[in-house]
């Protein structure tokens, strides 16, 4: 901490009731957690607790602060900045009920452009702008705001599922606070577009619309443009075209193949004068797809009288004839996926394509357990299912039915697009707040900055386990 900052912070601490300060001994960047809670609450909660998972705190408040410090130290040890990063933090009641809760929230307190460093006419998060100018540009305001739910796990607040305050990433059935903090702090450090993914409007609109530095690395494969090169309308399309928006920063591209596995699933269908690849969701059950894959003609399963849904009961003669030695197309709905696939398998199908019954893309994976299933299964979107069924219906003869190939594409990373550009999360319909500012959920292994917090995450933030740090480096960290 610079002398002036130290004096300023000392004044702040004198005015606030309690303060917690973090500065890792070997940190490249100092991250200061400003404890903004009143006496007896939040970080100052005096409830006695037993040490847990390497967290030596003996009160609830201490353990919360130590977990915050731990996450801050992880980031502080990876980033470089001459300007301390200030995080104004509270542990306080946030909206929740017995089965749902806001766990916490974090973000940059302000963004800055045209500050004499970096790219002109471009929004930067506060902490990054400070780093680039080596100056605290708005010294009176902390750079990042962080709020976390103090009631979690109590009655009527995600009852029974509380914070795991250990530091060893062993949360069991609880929620790992350090993982959530690492994710949310990364957003506060700049892992975020400030452009609205729903409207395409840039931050500061209508009077001062400017792109975010994040946007310069968003490259739309179809349009062959980056986000700043697009109109608002084009950005809306880009934000809702699944698996078409890649991260074009060299740090991420350089390390992506050390982090992500190869071989995303691929469904390619050929018919007379027709060849097309489709996005698919893979199945939790049955054999995994293979490099060489399965190649067979398509057959469509029709509804049967008395069945609660397409493919939900043993196939009648017509359906069995339609799918024997073929890849069966079955509509979603009425029963579990495994029921449909078992019925198709029993009728002689060699594979199954589940056609979604709800609009949306990309198609999510298929869940379920049935160890007796021996044929591969994928899911396609509602629109693609309609298209595939129309192709089958248009075939003039059985030997001219469209042919499907289910395989793995080892030319791509799982979660990567062309040129090792890691894909951003761009579902259709748009998921406000989730889209664009996260990695695509296809990424394998799972990454810290996917929109869903996966159970298998470690506390790693950089290659070879993760790509968050690499993206921040692309931004200028």
């Amino acid at each position, binding site marked *: 901490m610079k002398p002036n900052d130290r004096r300023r912070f000392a*004044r*702040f601490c004198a*005015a606030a009731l309690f303060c917690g300060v973090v500065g890792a001994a070997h940190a490249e960047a100092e991250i200061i957690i*400003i404890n*903004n809670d009143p006496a007896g609450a939040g970080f100052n909660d005096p409830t006695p607790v037993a040490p847990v998972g390497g967290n030596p705190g003996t009160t609830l408040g201490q353990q919360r602060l130590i977990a915050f410090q731990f996450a801050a130290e992880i980031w502080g040890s990876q980033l470089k900045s001459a300007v301390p990063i200030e995080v104004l933090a509270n542990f306080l009641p*946030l*909206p929740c009920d017995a089965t*749902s*809760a*806001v*766990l*916490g929230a*974090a*973000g940059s*307190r*302000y*963004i*800055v*452009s*045209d500050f*004499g460093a970096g790219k002109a006419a471009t929004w930067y998060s506060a902490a990054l702008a400070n780093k680039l100018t080596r*100056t605290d*540009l*708005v010294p*009176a305001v*902390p750079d990042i705001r962080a*709020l976390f739910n103090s009631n979690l796990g109590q009655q009527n607040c*995600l009852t029974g*599922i509380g914070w795991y305050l250990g530091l060893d990433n062993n949360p069991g*059935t609880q*929620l790992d606070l350090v993982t*959530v903090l690492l*994710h949310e702090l990364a*957003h506060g450090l700049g892992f*975020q577009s*400030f452009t609205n993914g729903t409207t395409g409007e840039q*931050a*500061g609109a209508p009077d*001062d619309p400017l792109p975010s530095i994040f946007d310069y690395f968003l490259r739309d494969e179809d349009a062959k443009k980056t986000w700043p090169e697009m109109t608002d309308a084009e950005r809306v399309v880009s934000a809702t075209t699944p698996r078409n928006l890649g991260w074009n920063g060299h740090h991420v591209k350089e390390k992506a193949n050390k982090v992500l596995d190869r071989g995303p699933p691929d469904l390619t269908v050929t018919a007379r004068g027709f060849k097309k690849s489709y996005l698919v969701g893979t199945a939790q059950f049955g054999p995994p797809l293979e490099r060489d894959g399965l190649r067979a003609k398509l057959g469509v399963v029709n509804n049967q009288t008395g069945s609660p849904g397409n493919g939900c009961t043993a196939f009648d003669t017509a359906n069995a004839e339609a799918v024997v030695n073929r890849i069966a197309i079955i509509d979603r*709905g*009425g*029963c*579990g*996926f495994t029921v449909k696939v078992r019925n198709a398998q029993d009728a002689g199908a060699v594979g199954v394509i589940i056609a979604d019954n709800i609009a949306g893309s990309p198609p*999510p*994976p298929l*869940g379920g357990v049935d160890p007796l299933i021996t044929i591969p299964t994928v899911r396609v979107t509602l629109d693609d299912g309609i298209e595939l069924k129309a192709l089958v219906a248009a075939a003039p003869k059985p030997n001219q039915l469209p042919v499907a190939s289910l395989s793995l594409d080892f030319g791509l990373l799982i979660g990567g697009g062309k040129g090792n550009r890691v894909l951003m999360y761009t579902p259709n319909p748009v998921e*406000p*707040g*989730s889209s664009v*500012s996260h990695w695509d*959920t*296809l990424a394998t292994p*799972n990454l810290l900055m996917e*929109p*869903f*917090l*996966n*159970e*298998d995450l470690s506390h790693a933030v950089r290659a070879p386990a993760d790509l968050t740090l690499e993206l921040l480096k692309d931004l200028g960290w």
Partner: protein
Amino acid sequence: MRVAIDPETKRLRPVEHDDAVGAARSAAARGALSSRKAANVTTLSNGVRVMELDESFMSYSTARVGPDGKPDSACVVGQDAAAKLLREKPVNRTASAGGRYETE
């Protein structure tokens, strides 16, 4: 140039000696999840532009308990998006590579 955002007027002004105290008090007084929507961009005489961000730019981690009793957590940006996510009917799904598993 070092500037401060006045915690009451939200306008930029020169740094004063008690800015840190004022900012903290104001933040506490506003409440954790107050809602402000208007963009607040100020251009300084030297061309530096500063935009204070409201809760619509904050990232929210949320969780819902699915039918299997496990928490299903997700991150969204903006208080409204978080509230919408919590209103949605939970489905039986688990974390996986490629998204969430649904079983039917």
